[in-house]
């Protein structure tokens, strides 16, 4: 809801402003940075080979793909048992669990990385991160509603929010099995501040923006929403990543800041564990 309000405010005020305003690319010289390990890992309640990507950070105008980190030891523990992840031969720097692995709700997961062999990183350093899988929340249904003004199809959620606990939701949207929310800025995250413990009776959680060519549903198309229950760290990470990957209007933004992660010893990125359920609807305009 806060997001929706912010968009409204931004739209109303900035729309007037930007009509008088221009933009252009400029040349800037930026300072360099030290190399750090970057972790990007997600374990869910799905049964599959879950991936953890290790890479290195680079200078801001590096302008090339940043290299993966090969040959590290990566292990994952659910508090009872620990497994080692295997590096994919075809994708150096990407490590996976066995394909029959799945996360269990109400468990803490610990990711442990050692033996990182890269310039600028001490090979004796051990990097760790923890994440908790929140209990599954299964939506009852979703519905579509067109908003003429915004020119988008809103996706409305019907679902009982568990009381007593703070829940963090992340929604991925698919149109005919094609992932629409492929960037942080497109992912929808909400907390239950405004409907904690209530029945979410048609809450606007995501949308298809019909101004984008790949987001115009036709009759019979399948719209699917994957509902992830995530922990607070991941929620904060995405919230910050959304701010840092969209243009900022100085009128409304605070000073930029580093996206907060949960990896120890100065590594960047996030390791997250989440429960996931899916619901779909057939589009009828």
């Amino acid at each position: 809801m806060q997001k929706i309000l912010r968009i409204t405010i931004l739209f109303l005020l900035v729309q007037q402003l930007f009509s008088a305003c221009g933009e252009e690319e400029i040349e800037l010289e930026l300072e360099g940075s030290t190399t750090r390990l970057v972790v990007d890992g997600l374990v869910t309640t799905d049964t599959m080979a879950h991936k953890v990507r290790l890479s290195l950070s680079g200078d801001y105008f590096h302008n090339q793909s940043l290299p993966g980190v090969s040959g590290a030891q990566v292990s994952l523990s659910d508090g009872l048992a620990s497994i080692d992840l295997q590096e994919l031969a075809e994708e150096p720097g990407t490590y996976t669990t066995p394909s029959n692995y799945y996360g269990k709700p109400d468990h803490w997961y610990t990711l442990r990385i050692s033996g990182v062999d890269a310039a600028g990183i001490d090979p004796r350093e051990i990097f760790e991160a923890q994440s908790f899988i929140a209990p599954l929340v299964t939506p009852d249904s979703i519905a579509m509603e067109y908003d003429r003004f915004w020119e988008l199809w809103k996706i409305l959620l019907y679902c009982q929010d568990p009381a007593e606990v703070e829940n963090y939701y992340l929604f991925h949207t698919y149109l005919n099995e094609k992932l629409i929310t492929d960037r942080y800025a497109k992912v929808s995250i909400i907390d239950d501040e405004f409907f904690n413990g209530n029945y979410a009776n048609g809450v606007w959680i995501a949308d298809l923006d019909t101004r984008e060519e790949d987001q115009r549903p036709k009759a019979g198309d399948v719209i699917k929403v994957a509902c992830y229950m995530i922990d607070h760290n991941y929620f904060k990470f995405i919230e910050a990543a959304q701010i840092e990957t969209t243009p900022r209007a100085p009128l409304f933004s605070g000073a930029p800041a580093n996206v907060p992660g949960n990896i120890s010893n100065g590594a960047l990125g996030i390791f997250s564990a989440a429960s996931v359920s899916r619901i779909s609807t057939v589009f009828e305009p």
Partner: protein
Amino acid sequence: MRLYFLLFLAWTAYAVRAEGPATALKSRVVSGYIKDAQTGEVLIGATIGIPKSGTGTVSNHYGYYSLSLPEGRHSLQFTFLGYESVEKDLDLSTDKNLNVELAPASATLNEVKVVANQSHSRLDEPLTGVQKISGATIKQVPLLLGEADALKALQLMPGVRAASEGSSGFSVRGGNPDQNLILLDEAPVYNAGHLLGFFSVFNNDAIKDVSLYKGDIPAKNGGRLASVLDIRMKDGNARNFTASGGVGTISSRLTLEGPIASEKTTFLLAGRRTYADLFLKMSSDEQIKDNILYFYDVNAKLSHSFSESDRIYFSAYLGKDVVKNHFSEIYFGNHTSTFRWNHVFSPRLFSNLTLLFSNYQYGLAQSDANASGIKWISNMQDYGARLDFNYYPTPAHSISFGAQSTLHDILPGEVRPSDNSVFSPVIMQRKQALEHGFYIENAQKIGTKLTWRYGLRLSVFQNYDLDAKKSEHSYWRLEPRSGLTWMFHPKSSFKASYARTYQYMHLSSNSQSTTPLDVWFLSSPVVKPQRSDQFSLGWFRHMANNSVDLSIETFYKDMQNTIDFKDYADLMLNEDLESELRFGRAYAYGLEFMTRYNSGKWNGWLSYTWSRSRRKVNEINNNEWYYSPYDLTHDVSIVASYRLSPRLLLSGNWVFTTGAPVTFPVGRFESGNDLIPIYSERNAERMPDYHRLDVGITWKGKENPQKKWQGEWVFSAYNAYARKNAWSIYFEQDENNPHRTKAMKSYLFSIIPAITYNFRF
């Protein structure tokens, strides 16, 4: 603490009494009001001097002056900038009431001529860092869309800069915009901007006097660290009914003023409204056509003199901005009212009682047709009273003292869902507090060359629960203020001053420029009052028969309990706002140079500021020092106008400022399909330098004594050489090459021409 305050009172009384035996001759008082001969408006800050001895005084905010002199013959000179001086010879054997009227210089002269003995500043005033600007000067400065604007004109003064491009929000000596106390006829104005701050709420036609105190604040005011901006509305023409106004590029104005029945009662009514939305209607784009966007403001004032010693004033301001389309609506605005009663107890004792009210509110609504319809409101009120005295016991002392009390009542936010909305209402707790001030200050002449001002203010702040009718927590703070002036030469003085100030209300905004939706919050057991200690030194000189004023001032400001916000602070509707705050310390220092000239044909000023402003706040920037967003290294303003002929005035101003501190990325990492920036230190980089030229031509219609109507055309161009000054710099991923990131600059204005027609009859 209360004891110290009482001790100080006793000292002041002693200092005044101690003068007694030294003055052998009996002292008499000459007192009265100084007025504009044309309109009967009282003149604020006019000088009453005795050229022979160099003593003198100035008229107060109500045009009243009182000067104690030894019995005998005296020659008094009355001067005020832009007016013809008047000399009066007096034989003072008893106390004497003397009202003086000064004629505006231009009104009596067809030819423009130098009017001597007029300066923008007083060499003997024991205050540093004061900037005064008159409505007439403001009018001559070409500005955005041709709108005369007090706050924009002030930004051309040393030590003052815009919070962001085109904004009426301003920073004084490296302070935050919320550290300025803006008073309109003594009522605080909490959001002085229209249209996202591009215009200030002050309609220049209704303004008489603008004074800015840059941190060296007289003891009568307090509550903000950086400055007090004291704006006084006109009282209304006491002689004739006049109408004046203008039709501008985006707005029109009309001001009516005059006497009611007799000269004793005057009124002023000024209104202004923009019509940008009328142009939107012409758009072929349905979405734009639908939009409503306007602001208006109304200033009204009524005054009545019962006698020479009693006068009352009632003034009010009402303004509102509305931005609306079929989907949603935002409105915001201020309302202030002030009632004042001037009473002269004796020629030596002047008093003023003020009752004031100020309200700022905003609201936004989303259409309630859908499930996310809401109505959101926020408002704040001040109810205040103050009693101020000016006491002139002997020629050497000028004492002011008084007390004030204000109730602050803030509703940070209330969101109510529409009938079929899925959201639950959010109703934030109202916050209330009482803020009191007690002060006494004496400006004492020591010999002929020294003037020492010493004052003490006791400020008390109490968090208050209005329902339970009890105070929950209090702060008692003493604020010493002092200044010393040494007139080591008839045309030159040296000044030093010190001021301690406390601030108990703070603006919840972490953006570089304030927005209408920012909410004020109060000091509490957790949020300690911000404190500032400012030391300043200055050298002041009048040259070339007083047509040139020169000043060089330096300051050092130490600030404690500075507030900043944690990374990604959530400031909207946050009941636990205090958890988003981080506290630390800050300092600022700088050098300000200014020369103002007024040679008849040429008018204007040149100002240059060099300064630094840094802070160190817990948990921010790894607890290291960083630049305040309002740190400006170099700031230059050149303002000039040239009267080509009595009908033609050319004007221009050029500004240059070092780019504001900003945080840029130094590295990046990949996560998902995104490139995430890595930042090094907060505010370690700079925006590109900013410079801009504005020009204007004022062309007056022929003056015809038979016709009352006077008109003038004003043509202006903002940003005349169309520099694309960066408003923001942001970074984005290249759409075609996801590995490439680029820096983008957005700019607000290219060249903006404007035409205004002003009239008066």
